[in-house]
């Protein structure tokens, strides 16, 4: 029954994606940014659905299982203010630049802003590398979900493969419009079913008050932040959501807005949506101790699914599993489409291959690249052994480190390509160093100082931007004026 419900759900998702193909206008701009025609509600749902992945359901509940209530402040309420602020200051400006200059990718914008081909190519490679762990979260999450919800009868690779194929199909046929429509549908599904999950399971566990009282009695440390999270980590995690300013998939959704005013609903409603999704995840994660004490490492990421499997009837378990699938796919689709857009625009088109191709062929290249990326991610997922939370945090750390680039491009007239290149290289070197040394080390801090890697990388990359820019020739005033206007 559970498998049947999941199969029906995946078919529905496919149908929505394929329906959007009817509106396809046959141009690459329509395929990659829906001809910048998305309205306020679909923008909110697609931006939110894209940002909330397996990380916000499986990862958050798993981390709450380990660390308690602090996870909500650490990630959810931090994102609730930082992400809308990013939309306000960064998203609107990127949208305006995209509309005016016809940009479809970040590399196009930064290449034009600083007149540097090398910077565009370097950014393409770095952004691609940083999105891979983020994609893995989705494929691993799909696998975990199917395996746990069927009581281990279906191996995890089947779930990962199933969502990869479905995502590939509707991204291939629907492009950004299909992705936005499906995201809207899926975001509504996972928000609704998330609420149903928490109500149902909490009732099974004796009500909110009773269940929390039991958790407090057995694990009082989860009711406070205490030693589970350091104060420095809590404060510096405000930097993590700044990563949205450099996410390729977020950039793509921002560009799809019809007007700048379209952003307003997303800015205001985003914090509410975050609370609606994260509060149940955190509460259920802690309550997982009542039914499944002693889960370790990546196993803790499956606590939500274990609860569903143990406490919900089969039909509801299937529906709730579909909710987790929805959260997973609504991110995976945008990420792979963004990568397809980047490959088509930043490599194929920019380096002249497109001269020999029609618009249709360019779209085909994007679709093939999407298939290739999904295949690579799926293969990596077969051997990856990592918690969803830590994979996400490492990916976000890299994107946050690149934030000075978008900030300088939009706000600092004196910034130069040398500064931008220095920023990217600083992030690459430090991120690789910290990742190699700290990926498997719980509570890892930079150079043993107690400082989280994200803080060190952001400070260093900001300094690289400032020093690199001051030591190099100022950019031509005409170029700066075109981007930033007169002083």
């Amino acid at each position, binding site marked *: 029954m559970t498998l049947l419900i999941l199969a029906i759900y995946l078919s529905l998702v496919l149908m929505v994606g394929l329906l959007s193909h009817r509106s396809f206008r046959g141009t690459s701009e329509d395929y990659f940014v829906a001809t910048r025609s998305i309205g306020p509600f679909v923008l909110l749902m697609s931006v939110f659905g894209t940002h909330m992945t397996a990380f916000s359901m499986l990862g958050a509940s798993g981390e709450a299982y380990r660390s308690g*209530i602090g996870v909500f402040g650490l990630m959810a309420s931090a994102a609730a203010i930082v992400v809308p602020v990013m939309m306000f200051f960064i998203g609107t400006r990127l949208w305006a630049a995209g509309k005016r200059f016809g940009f479809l990718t970040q590399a196009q914008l930064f290449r034009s802003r600083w007149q540097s081909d090398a910077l565009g190519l370097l950014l393409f490679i770095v952004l691609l590398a940083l999105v891979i762990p983020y994609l893995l979260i989705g494929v691993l999450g799909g696998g975990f979900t199917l395996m746990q919800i069927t009581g281990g009868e279906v191996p995890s690779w089947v779930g990962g493969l199933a969502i990869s194929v479905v995502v590939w199909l509707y991204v291939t046929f629907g492009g950004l419009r299909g992705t936005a429509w499906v995201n809207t549908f899926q975001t509504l599904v996972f928000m609704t079913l998330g609420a149903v999950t928490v109500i149902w399971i909490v009732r099974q566990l004796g009500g909110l008050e009773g269940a929390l009282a039991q958790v407090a009695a057995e694990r009082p440390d989860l009711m*406070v932040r205490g030693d589970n999270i350091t104060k420095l980590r*809590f404060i510096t995690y405000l930097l993590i959501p700044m990563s949205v300013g450099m996410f390729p998939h977020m950039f793509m959704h921002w560009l799809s807005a019809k007007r700048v005013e379209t952003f307003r609903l997303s800015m205001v409603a985003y914090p509410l949506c975050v609370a609606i999704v994260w509060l149940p995840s955190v509460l259920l994660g802690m309550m997982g101790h009542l039914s499944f004490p002693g889960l370790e490492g990546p196993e803790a990421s499956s606590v939500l699914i274990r609860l569903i499997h143990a406490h919900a009837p089969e039909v509801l378990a299937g529906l709730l599993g579909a909710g987790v699938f929805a959260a997973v796919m609504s991110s995976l689709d945008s990420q792979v489409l963004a990568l397809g857009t980047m490959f088509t625009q930043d490599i194929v088109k920019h380096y002249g291959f497109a001269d020999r191709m029609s618009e249709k062929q360019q779209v085909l290249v994007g679709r093939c690249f999407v298939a290739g990326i999904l295949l690579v991610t799926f293969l990596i997922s077969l051997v990856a052994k990592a918690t969803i939370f830590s994979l996400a945090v490492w990916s976000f750390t890299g994107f946050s480190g690149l934030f000075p680039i978008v900030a300088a491009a939009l706000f600092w007239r004196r910034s130069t390509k040398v500064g931008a290149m220095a920023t990217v290289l600083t992030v690459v070197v430090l991120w690789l160093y910290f990742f190699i040394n700290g990926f498997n080390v719980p509570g890892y801090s930079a150079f043993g100082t107690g400082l989280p890697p994200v803080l060190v990388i952001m400070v260093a990359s900001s300094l690289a931007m400032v020093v690199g820019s001051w030591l190099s020739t100022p950019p031509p005033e005409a170029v700066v004026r075109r981007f*930033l206007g007169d002083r």
Partner: protein
Amino acid sequence: MIPSSQSGGPQRPLIYALLALFVLLHNDLWWWDDATFVLGLPIALTYHLGYCLAAMGWMALMIRFAWPKVIDHHPEDESAVEDHRSGGAA
């Protein structure tokens, strides 16, 4: 031109200063080890839930009083798009 932070009313600097204060209020270190329950949840969780709701109101204020002005059409717009799409730097 990308919308400028310099456009808009005189209240803009005040709004930005208050925004910085609001972001700082996220760091509720003062009840770090307090396990008191408020409204059925541990106090820090209730606080951060309230913070999310306050963020909605804050963003509404930002939109009302500090919305970036966008120049819808710029004399160089069309040529800029052409420049970029022809493969060169804009």
